[in-house]
């Protein structure tokens, strides 16, 4: 139930006085509520859970995590095993 999935915000609109979005999950589009991420913009990725964006994905942090692990991989390659 807590399986949030990151999706790309394709379109933003208002419905029943709530900020809503059409969100693209790799080709599948679903509606999500942006009430808790009002700063969201089209093109950004949001973590969607039971029809609500609960956080916006932080691209810098995402790259940083991958970079740190890539450094571990590179370091391993240098050490003869």
């Amino acid at each position, binding site marked *: *139930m*807590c*399986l*949030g*999935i*990151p999706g*790309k915000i394709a379109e933003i609109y208002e419905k*029943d*006085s*709530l900020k809503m979005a059409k969100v693209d*999950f*790799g080709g599948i589009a*679903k*509606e*999500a*509520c942006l*009430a*808790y*991420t*009002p700063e969201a913009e089209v093109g950004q*990725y949001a*973590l969607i*859970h*039971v*029809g*609500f964006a*609960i*956080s916006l*994905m*932080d*691209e810098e*942090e*995402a790259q*940083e*995590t*991958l970079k740190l*692990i*890539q450094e*571990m*991989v590179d370091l*391993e390659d240098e050490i003869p095993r």
Partner: protein
Amino acid sequence: MKYLDEYRDPIKVKTLLREIESAVTKNWVIMEICGGQTHAFLHNGLDAMLPPQIELVHGPGCPVCVTPLEQIDRALAIASHPDVIFTSYGDMLRVPGSSKDLFAVRAQGGDVRIVYSPLEAVQIAEANPDKQVVFFAIGFETTAPANAMAVLQAKNKNIKNFSVLVSHVRVPPAMEAILGSKTNRVQGFLAAGHVCAVMGFHEYPPIAEKYRVPIVVTGFEPIDLLNGLLAAVKQLESGQAVAENQYQRAVKFEGNESAQRTIRSVFQSTDRKWRGIGVIPQSGWGLSPEFQEFDAERRFDVENIFTQESSLCIAGEILQGLKKPPQCPAFGKQCTQQSPLGAPMVSAEGACAAYYRYHREAIYG
């Protein structure tokens, strides 16, 4: 898909496994709290690739699993009313109550509908003014913002035929209940990433300090899981016990404050009974006084339904990490995914379902 695929890279997975292997010198018991993480570990076969010193135990973070039997019985009683449209997240429909499940109610003519978002339940109420529409508001902190917003919408739009059967639980009190138990074996936690996306992790440093356990906020992809585990092992090996975040792309220390404000306005802290565990004080949320009119338990007078749980099912021990599913005498025998005895065998996040699906050798030897 972006933010998923790059965290499944097998080269990085292998490197992280080797890092964990070289970091570990002693035996450690680490609990992943979230059932989604249990499934991700087993689905990817990561549990079998970890060094033998690390024992993963599976936590109570499966909302379907911890919802007590009597709450299911209350749902069944409400859903059986002829003028009720009962709406729920799909997971709940197959969870057995004392005598049947919600699917059986539907088969007997009840109007039971699966919704993806609780806002859909509000729309159903608007479209069916002559019916009572009830939403089964279960879940941890992750579903609370959505469930709270549905109640708020109903209030704002003056929708009188909508109500919620609330069974909300929270992670930190469950962690404290596990750590405070005499039988506790857990030495470190992987904290549930999406719970923390909503709540942040400011509740965790005091727990880490009080019980001397590392708590690492962890995501759901293979690299996230191993990265979280590596951080926990490093802390354990060096005698540290702090709360740290290994899911930075989705989680901030303070969490989603707007969601927390809405949760606080609609819900208030309350005691909750956990399946197989019992009552944990102040471990969940119920409707706050201003929203009592939306309380389905009062509207349908089901507050006094109490039920004894099956003596055969050891869900309580499973959910506290005391036993693994194959240690249950009913596992794979009287209890299967086709005919589950307890909720952990039903849910897509339940530990028993994960073992049943991915560890068939546990059944067939």
